[in-house]
């Protein structure tokens, strides 16, 4: 089991954002988390990558407990993440953003950095080549050297994915990658996620776009008010009366 979340509870003051949540993520599949606004989807992602510490319960990555660990330790354990509100490094170019993503795989001692040893130059070249490949994979090779604050919104969304991929994560958490995109851009993201899934990356997708979700996922979890409402294959979830009621209201 790639990731296991047991009895997660996250509270902010008096509000319970997540309550008694269990989740199992199997390697190699695309899992989606859906639910109305305020259901706790982003909160769940934040707990799964270590940004939030749950009040109760724990997260296990490849059976290793991640209780009390910092976000960078989650990253080192193989969790990658994109953000609902873009967190691009706007002080760097597109290529540099992706190169930065490779941090976990750089072997760069302080001495080599300070003295500019030849081994560093070789490593930097390799890093650059890999980053360029990732940019091509997400379709951004034209923007390679552009300052990232000149990229259009849709391109930035894809840049975040490229950066997250540079860390070679075992599990990639995508937080509303299609939010704010027009239909053409949404189609591109859809195809990108399909390519990702085909390449073997395990994906947990939070999305509102139902067509996208149902088309690409093998497993869907529905949240409502911080609790798991239903889970299963896209078809099973789509027909679940509890889900229909939560989304469309009783009597629909």
């Amino acid at each position, binding site marked *: 089991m790639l990731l296991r979340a047991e009895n997660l509870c996250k509270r*902010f003051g008096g509000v319970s954002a997540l309550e008694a949540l269990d989740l199992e993520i199997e390697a190699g599949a695309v899992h989606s988390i859906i639910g109305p606004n305020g259901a706790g989807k*982003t909160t769940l992602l*934040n707990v799964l990558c270590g*940004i939030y510490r749950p009040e109760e319960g724990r997260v296990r990555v490849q059976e290793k407990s991640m209780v009390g660990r910092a976000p960078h330790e989650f990253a080192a354990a193989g969790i990658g993440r994109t*953000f*609902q*509100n873009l*967190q691009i490094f706007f002080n760097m170019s597109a290529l540099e953003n992706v190169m930065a993503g490779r941090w976990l795989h750089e072997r760069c001692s302080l001495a080599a950095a300070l003295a500019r040893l030849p081994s560093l130059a070789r490593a930097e070249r390799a890093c650059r080549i890999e980053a360029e490949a990732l940019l091509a994979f997400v379709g951004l090779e034209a923007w390679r050297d552009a300052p990232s604050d000149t990229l259009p919104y849709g391109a930035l969304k894809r840049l975040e994915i490229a950066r997250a991929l540079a860390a070679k994560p075992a599990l990639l958490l995508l*937080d509303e990658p299609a939010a704010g995109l027009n239909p053409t851009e949404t189609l591109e993201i859809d195809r990108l996620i399909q390519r990702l899934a085909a390449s073997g990356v395990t994906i947990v997708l939070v999305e509102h776009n139902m067509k996208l979700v149902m088309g690409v996922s093998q497993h869907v979890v529905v949240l409502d008010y911080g609790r798991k409402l239903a889970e299963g294959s896209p078809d099973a979830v789509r027909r679940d009366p509890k889900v229909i009621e939560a989304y469309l209201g009783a009597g629909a």
Partner: protein
Amino acid sequence: MSAQLLQFLLSGLTVGAIYALVALGFAIIYNASHVINFAQGEFVMIGGMATVSFIDAGLPLPLSIPLAVGVAAVVGLLLEKLAIEPARNASVVTLIIITIGASILLRGLASLVWDKKIHAVPAFSGEAPIALGGATLLPQTVWVLGVAAVVVGLLWWFFNRTLTGSAILAVSHNRLAAQLMGVSVRRVLLVSFGLSAALGALAGILIAPITFTSWDVGVMLGLKGFAAAILGGLGSGPGAVVGGLALGMIESLGAGYLSSAYKDVFAFLIILAALVVLPNGLFGRRAAERV
């Protein structure tokens, strides 16, 4: 309570009230613009020094004081109009350097307009000490505490009960939304700077009869006001007041019981320790970053 302790607490409250007023000035400007106005201390200095000038020119004290506050408020408005507004899109660090430059400029002007000597300001109602539970109280102290309390009350009424005050608070919470509601951010900034300058000047005038005034009193008072605002939680009005009073008392107790030379060290150490435990100050909003 021992007479000595009471004495320390009273002097701590007095200087704390001054810090509270200066800290409120920082809080008001920070709320409106997210800028830390390092020239705030100079408004304190202008208050005291301008009062000295008006008195030397022959004007009575009750007239000199509002005039001096007015002068400071005008300087505050000019600072906003000429220095902050043109740079409104600059980074926070750049704006900090601008206000630091302004503070140097104002101090330089002060040394030219006035001089580098120490000046005295007459106490508002005489110097006869009042006995209180074994401690002695200067009449000026009563003025400081009384006026500060009234001012804080007026500010509370202004921000909570008037339209202009609410507009300023709206800008501090969400500038864009406030603009969409028809609030003129430029006017809000002007009012904030003018108001903060007036507060600073008032603080300077209140304390001048006790501690004298000179061209460079602003530096340390400004720093202490900033420290008090941070301690209380940046942007929080009640925080500024509590922070100011706390800082004053810590300083006074430190000077009394430990060493007067190290009172500032003691105060800053306490502030550092407090920040480590409460990274957003006493009343600071622990804003959850939305990712």
